[in-house]
């Protein structure tokens, strides 16, 4: 299963896109030097002021393996492996962000990687980003059921699965991201979630997920870059 770095970044108001472009440029340029740029950026999004905290940026990087994830951390913290370019970027962009909260994610077997998402043509104008909380130890069962029953129900109502991920280091959190081609598709999905056929797959899944889900924090996102950027060809 692939390893991803997920970041919620407190961006300076009106500088979200500048931040996302800045981190995208830095990340892509550094990865290109190592021949790793392709497929390393899943998405860079800006949160819209409709649900959750704003302003906020969301970054999702595909690091693939724990080894590569460790290398990325070494480049910041390990005295003998620090990357001076990262330090330069870090200290030069304090006018764009004030802090954040990160998670390391492990993808589920049914979640496509960047190459797979590209091949399938996943994408859209709006994204639904949910941090799902379960009881401690239940997150695996929830993600298994999501893959078996949830994803077909979600996709049948107009959502496209970007990914479902277990949050590493925790025993009770998952991150689930879905894409909607158009705002109208999101409207159709939400209409079905709240008032669809009670015997339909989506309503059945909505009731079933309550077996595990103890709460959700939701953000609505617009993509600044998704699956590729000028620095992640």
């Amino acid at each position, binding site marked *: 299963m692939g390893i991803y770095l997920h970041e919620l970044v*407190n961006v300076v*108001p*009106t*500088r*979200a*896109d*500048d931040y996302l472009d800045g981190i995208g440029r830095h990340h892509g340029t550094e990865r290109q030097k190592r021949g790793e740029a392709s497929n390393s950026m899943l998405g860079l999004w*800006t949160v*819209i*002021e*409709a*649900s*959750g*905290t*704003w*302003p906020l940026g969301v970054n999702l990087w595909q690091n693939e393996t724990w080894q590569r994830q460790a290398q990325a951390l070494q480049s910041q913290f390990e005295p003998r492996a620090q990357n001076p370019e990262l330090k330069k970027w870090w200290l030069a962009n304090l006018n764009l962000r004030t802090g954040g909260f990160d998670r390391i994610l492990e993808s589920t077997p049914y979640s496509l990687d960047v190459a797979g998402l590209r091949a399938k043509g996943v994408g859209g*104008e*709006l994204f*639904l980003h*949910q941090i799902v909380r379960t009881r401690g130890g239940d997150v695996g069962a929830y993600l298994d059921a999501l893959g078996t029953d949830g994803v077909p129900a979600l996709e049948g109502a107009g959502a496209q699965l970007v990914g479902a991920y277990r949050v590493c280091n925790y025993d009770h959190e998952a991150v689930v991201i879905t894409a909607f081609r*158009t*705002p*109208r598709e*999101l*409207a*159709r999905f*939400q*209409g079905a979630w*709240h*008032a669809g056929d009670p015997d339909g797959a989506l309503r059945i899944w*909505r*009731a079933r*997920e*309550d077996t595990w*889900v*103890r*709460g*959700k924090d*939701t953000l*609505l996102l*617009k993509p600044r870059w998704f699956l590729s950027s000028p620095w992640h060809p």
Partner: protein
Amino acid sequence: MAIYLHEISAIDGGGKEGYLEALRTGWVPYAERTRGMRLVWLGSTIGSTATWPETMALWELRDWEHFADVCGRMYTDHADEPEMTDWWRGSFRFRRRARSQVLVGAPFSPTLDALRASGVSGTAYGFTRYRVAPGRVDAFVAALRVRAELDAARGRRLIGAYEIAFTNDAAYAIWVHDDLVAAGEYQRLLPGDAEIASWQRSVRHLLERSTEWWAFATPHCPLWPASYATDAKIW
């Protein structure tokens, strides 16, 4: 079903008056004109009961289609809509950040038109968040209808009862009192109210806890009492 967008803005220092005025003269008429968003409520939290300084706005949207259209045209730094982006960027003279939630009106929840038609108004409001047993939100919101009837008999009227969208454990309600004195009197009598206590027992299997913030409307809020004319600003 009507959908509501509830926005809470953290104010920078003494910027509340300026931000509320900027909303009243800028974003509110623009959002109504270009997006059909209808302002239901505008005002600020009462710091003695809530985080401060903060302002709150409640918008009514027709349905999910309307909501999705508004989302698709929401501000981003590269939005191609100069009037909106100018206002948005200018608003940061007064505010630092915001948090929002999407509310799904219960079938018995009155719309803005219904509130106006029945003459509901006031200056002092309660914004109540309910933490509900996961998956039991529909049942709890239905129970709020009973509570609304009990509260109406005590001078506290329902502005709206809602499911908080994108959750499975949260409901919301907004209540209005004539004024702050009436809000205080309601609270004074609450602990000894047998009917309310009975209602509370009836939802014990659904409701984990609730928290209520008080808020004060601006004189330009659509639900501000028509008989209370004033040019005062809320700072």
